[in-house]
């Protein structure tokens, strides 16, 4: 079981006071037991989640491989942001691996709030951009498969450390 406490309110704490209060006002708390799905790939879903505690696995269904795990996310991570873009069809399935709690934001309500209050919109979108760029970097590092063993150039090559 993965351990290690986290800075679960990183996302909220990065926002100015006023915007944080606004956001907390439209948030609701959700929780899931181990094995429960937060959302399913291909299905419509309304909420974006900010994990407070627990551990969630994201996977995609690859026909000839079956359900393929992509990554896990934990406290402080944003998961399921498709509703924020207006696209409501989820691109992955999210499953809780341990008792998990999150702040849930209704995508439509959040978008409306951002449209009404552009300052809120700016800060929310900015922080989401930062979060996404971090996730993109992580995905690229994962894609690089850095721990794959390197083949030596030739068996007659001098040995190298």
């Amino acid at each position: 079981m993965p351990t290690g406490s986290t800075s679960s309110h990183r996302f909220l704490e990065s926002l100015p006071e006023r915007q944080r209060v606004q956001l907390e006002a439209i948030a609701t708390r959700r929780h899931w037991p181990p094995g429960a799905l937060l959302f399913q790939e291909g299905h419509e879903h309304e909420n974006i989640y900010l994990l407070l505690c627990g551990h969630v696995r994201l996977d995609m269904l690859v026909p000839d491989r079956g359900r393929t795990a992509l990554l896990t996310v934990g406290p402080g991570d944003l998961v399921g942001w498709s509703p924020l873009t207006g696209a409501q069809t989820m691109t992955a399935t999210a499953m809780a691996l341990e008792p998990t709690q999150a702040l849930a934001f209704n995508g439509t309500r959040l978008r409306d709030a951002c449209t009404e209050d552009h300052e809120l919109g700016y800060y929310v979108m900015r922080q989401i951009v930062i979060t996404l760029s971090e996730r993109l970097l992580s995905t690229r590092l994962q894609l690089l498969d850095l721990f794959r063993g390197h083949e030596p150039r030739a068996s007659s090559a001098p040995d190298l450390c």
Partner: protein
Amino acid sequence: MSADPIDNAALWLGPKAGLQQVIDALRRTGYTIVGPMVDQAAIVYGEIGGIEQLPRGWTDRQAPGQYRIEQTGRDTYFDYVVGPHSWKKYLFPPRLAVAAVVPLQAGWQFERPRDDPPTYAFLGVRACEIAAIRVQDRVFLEGGYVDAAYQRRRKPAFILTVNCTLAGTNCFCASMNTGPRCTEGFDLALTELENGFVIEIGSERGRSTMADCDVRPATEAERSAGVAARQRATDQQSKRMNTDGLPQLLMANLQHPRWKDVGERCLSCTNCTMVCPTCFCSSVEEVPDLNTGRIERQRQWDSCFHEEFSSLNGRPVRNEIAARYRQWLTHKLSTWHEQFGTSGCVGCGRCITWCPVGIDITEEVAALREPAL
């Protein structure tokens, strides 16, 4: 270099054939004398028994990527600069057993191989070469580990220098503050004049060697003639390298377009590293004796220009020639300072002469000083 100090204790050896006495005195002391000689259309270093083996009447003509020797018809012994050999050939031999292992019934026995080098007297060492030897002293003697083989050869070596009285086209020792005048680090220093040699004593060892020779104090005229002759070497030097802030400049310009440019010309042939008197890269090879099973571990000269010289996880780090050239140049002129407290370059010009495509290190540095567009 500051004004040429006139050594009031300088000696005169004339006529020049008297140089044989110095050779004989050294030989009697037990030295193996190594000096310049003509071989295969070049002036190289080899064992010397008599002055007739020296390149009498020869001079050299050097240019980027060019070297030839020619007869001048004059009665001179040292009327040339430096050739493809340097004294590292003797102090840091191209091939040397560093360890050995003998198979036993139950396993291996690790041995230290015998190393009994001759005691060398180097005859004809130029100022840039003294500087190069002292650079290698820092590498092999003043780091965390002392290279015992280098020490065994270097410590007892007798240094008989020759002050240059001419400059080669590729020489730039003045820019590197290594010459052309020899001021220290020698046992004896010779300046060749028309009818004899002005000799300066640099050590007790040098003094006692001259005690056996037919010499007398040099006259003021002879000493002045020596100054004038040495001045010719300074005056003739045309190549320059601006070394102001060079270490920092090179490390701040690792992405300069000039690297790509020189990488397209450089053949990665390793000539420059072989002739460079300070280059010290090496590799160790397992050399088994098929009869006895004894394995010698032999250290040989290697070069950072070899593609596989530096690698990570089995792949070369410096795939492109441009990256390897950059490594050589930045090491020689920049990181060497951080590693050893001096520049790695002594301005001897050998790398320019022996580069098949005539790459000139002073030109490359000048180009790297130009702001990258």
